[in-house]
């Protein structure tokens, strides 16, 4: 029987190791799995690469993980927030490496990893310093930059409801990066508010089919 629901964050994060890349969902603190991400600190894993659109806000979630010093590198598009003290301090002290990626390229690179794409050409950023050192190609008279897939060892995402097969639904704008990260994580862990009976989620409206989800942990 398939039952992806695990008991507690330690079980949810089992197997995380030094040097892993973590895909952390959320946009502007909405749809971020605060508790699950904070539980990474307790695992003791170090030298992590955190992939997240922002860099957390205040002292919680991704901000707490970054502050803990467990992350060597942040791959993000916009490390700014209402309270960016953690990332601004780390950046000022050169205590973290930042790879800045345009938001859509960040999402597309994760989808490429999920879809078996070896790389793709995009117009985004081709004219800019973010293309420095990257392959450029003119296609049909326009300049494109080559971008590589961005897979995660773990995806740490937030959803509204899950069933025991790992099917997920989200709430409104809390969906954001979570589905694409679910697809791009080798191990995908979903922190959810509620468990639904198998078969009770509308099969036409499942935003993340369970095939992309390995573990579900409830945190109401």
């Amino acid at each position, binding site marked *: 029987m398939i039952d992806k629901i695990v008991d507690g964050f330690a079980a949810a994060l089992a197997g995380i190791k030094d040097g892993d890349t973590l895909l952390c969902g959320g*946009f*502007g*603190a*909405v*749809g971020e799995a605060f508790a699950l991400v904070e539980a990474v600190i307790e695992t003791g894993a170090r030298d992590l690469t955190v992939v997240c*659109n922002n*860099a957390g806000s205040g002292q919680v979630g991704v901000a707490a993980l970054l502050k803990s010093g467990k992350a060597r590198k942040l791959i*993000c*598009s*916009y*490390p*700014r*927030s*209402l309270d*960016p003290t953690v*990332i*601004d301090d780390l*950046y*000022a002290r050169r205590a973290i490496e*930042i790879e*800045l*990626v*345009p*938001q*859509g*390229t960040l*999402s*597309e690179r*994760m*989808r490429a990893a999920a879809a078996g794409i070896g790389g793709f050409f*995009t*117009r*985004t*950023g*081709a*004219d*800019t*310093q*973010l293309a420095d050192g990257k392959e450029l190609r003119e296609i049909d008279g326009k300049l494109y930059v080559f971008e590589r897939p961005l897979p995660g060892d773990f995806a740490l995402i937030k959803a509204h409801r899950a069933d025991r097969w790992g099917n997920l639904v*989200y*709430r*409104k*704008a*809390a*969906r*954001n*990066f*979570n*589905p*694409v990260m679910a697809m791009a994580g080798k191990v995908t862990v979903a922190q959810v508010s509620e468990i639904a009976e198998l078969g009770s989620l509308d099969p036409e409206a499942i*935003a993340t089919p369970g095939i992309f989800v390995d573990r579900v942990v409830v945190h109401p």
Partner: protein
Amino acid sequence: MMPLTRRQMAWRCAQDLRDGQYVNHGIGMPTLVSDYLPADREIVLHSENGILGMGGAPKPGEEDPDLINAGRGKATLHPGGSFFHHNDSFLMIRGGHIDLSIMGAYEVSASGDLANWAIDGDTRAPGVGGAMDLAAGAKEVRVLMEHNAKDGTPRIRARCTLPLTAKACVKRVYTNLAVLDIAREGVVVREMIDGLDLAGLQKLTEARLTLAKDWKRLVTPVL
């Protein structure tokens, strides 16, 4: 001479929106555009965090913690609106499905180059967000910005001095002094506020300006 307020600039920008357009407005001043959508037109606002048909701010007590706009303000959804994930949201942006992107900027060049993500001497961690995606992908890009920096430096430049967001993408600029088109022949002044003439505006602008034959006074309500 009375430069426009930020709200007047947003109002002017909003007057050009067309019925049925899919519009993404950036954070900061462009957010104000949504307060002045013409009542006789149905305009569908796209928010990069996965919303089409975004409405304005909710009434007090009706805020939903999971429904925010790209600037992290609380938002609402119009009937007919929809939610989707980030990859689909940026497919809309990068694939040319957004009719109009309205962004703020630090600089726009005479050839429509846009610089709006990095400034000199910023000690904060760098951030680009969705600006490069919108600049390269939207069907049309319009900029809403003060005509000059606080120290008077022109922002409409012969060439951009700051790191580029994308080349040759801006088609129209709304400032607190004028409405200007980036055309094949250069920067064309379509509207100027009362009390300003071309020579006066040129003094405040680095790029060479020409005056449209049918130029008009830029007039807005008091806002």
